[in-house]
């Protein structure tokens, strides 16, 4: 539980809170980008280099820009009348708090029963049982993707094609009839 983890966790949670609480929609999108960046750094802290860089490339480089374009195309950057939170905000907040309570209880209650590798090195468990960082090369990921996980890879390829065509068709202007 190093200092770096606390800093990155604080950055990510602050970005997420700002994304959900700010009034201006574009500011929310930019705060979301900060949250994505914090998550990418957390992935790097967990020695998942490929996942961290892919997170930056896909989420910050594509999804954030998509969100921002959608905000601009739907006039979301103008200040809304009637408040930014819906009428039933208390119910939503209670539900989310309840969900967090259940998760936190589950995590805390299962802490003694975690796998050996996750325990920090104490006197009872010498440091040799703490798992060293797995040295993952891109080649190993490539072999795994085209070997053991080739079926999900092909399905995701089909899914991406379908989503691409579907998004274009959904958002296309309808043909203007000749007046």
């Amino acid at each position: 539980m190093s200092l770096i983890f606390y800093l990155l966790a604080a950055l990510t949670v602050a970005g997420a809170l700002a994304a959900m609480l700010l009034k201006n929609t574009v500011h929310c999108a930019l705060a979301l980008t900060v949250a994505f960046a914090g998550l990418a750094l957390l992935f790097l802290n967990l020695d998942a280099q490929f996942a961290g860089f892919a997170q930056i490339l896909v989420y910050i480089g594509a999804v954030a820009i998509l969100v921002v374009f959608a905000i601009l195309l739907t006039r979301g950057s103008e200040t809304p009348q009637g408040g930014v939170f819906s009428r039933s905000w208390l119910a939503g907040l209670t539900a989310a708090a309840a969900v967090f309570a259940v998760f936190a209880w589950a995590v805390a209650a299962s802490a003694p029963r975690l796998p050996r590798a996750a325990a920090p090195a104490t006197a009872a468990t010498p440091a040799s049982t703490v798992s060293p960082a797995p040295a993952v090369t891109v080649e190993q990921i490539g072999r795994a993707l085209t070997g053991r996980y080739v079926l999900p890879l092909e399905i995701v390829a089909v899914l991406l094609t379908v989503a691409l065509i579907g998004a274009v068709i959904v958002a296309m202007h309808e043909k203007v009839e000749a007046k």
Partner: protein
Amino acid sequence: MIGQITPLTGYLLVAALLFSIGLAGALTRRNAILVLIGIELMLNAANLNLIAFWRYGPHPELLTGMIFAIFSIAVAAAEAAVGLGLVIQIHRHARTTDLDAINRMKG
């Protein structure tokens, strides 16, 4: 129980917190795009969980967690694209993205 804070527990708690923040935002904001932002936060929290369990789990050399997270990133991007396309089309039809105003099926 509290004294057993392992690194894995820390990551799981952060992921749970992000998930609840995303859920709260998706349930309480009026703008449809902010609901989608909340959903993206929830997906990211799940990704963090996957990577944390991959790193501190029993078999990190199998790369299952990392591959799962990579696929999840790809699928989330596709879902964001389609969802935002839908929001844009709804805006064209109803002239607003306020979810409290679009809560009827009558077009």
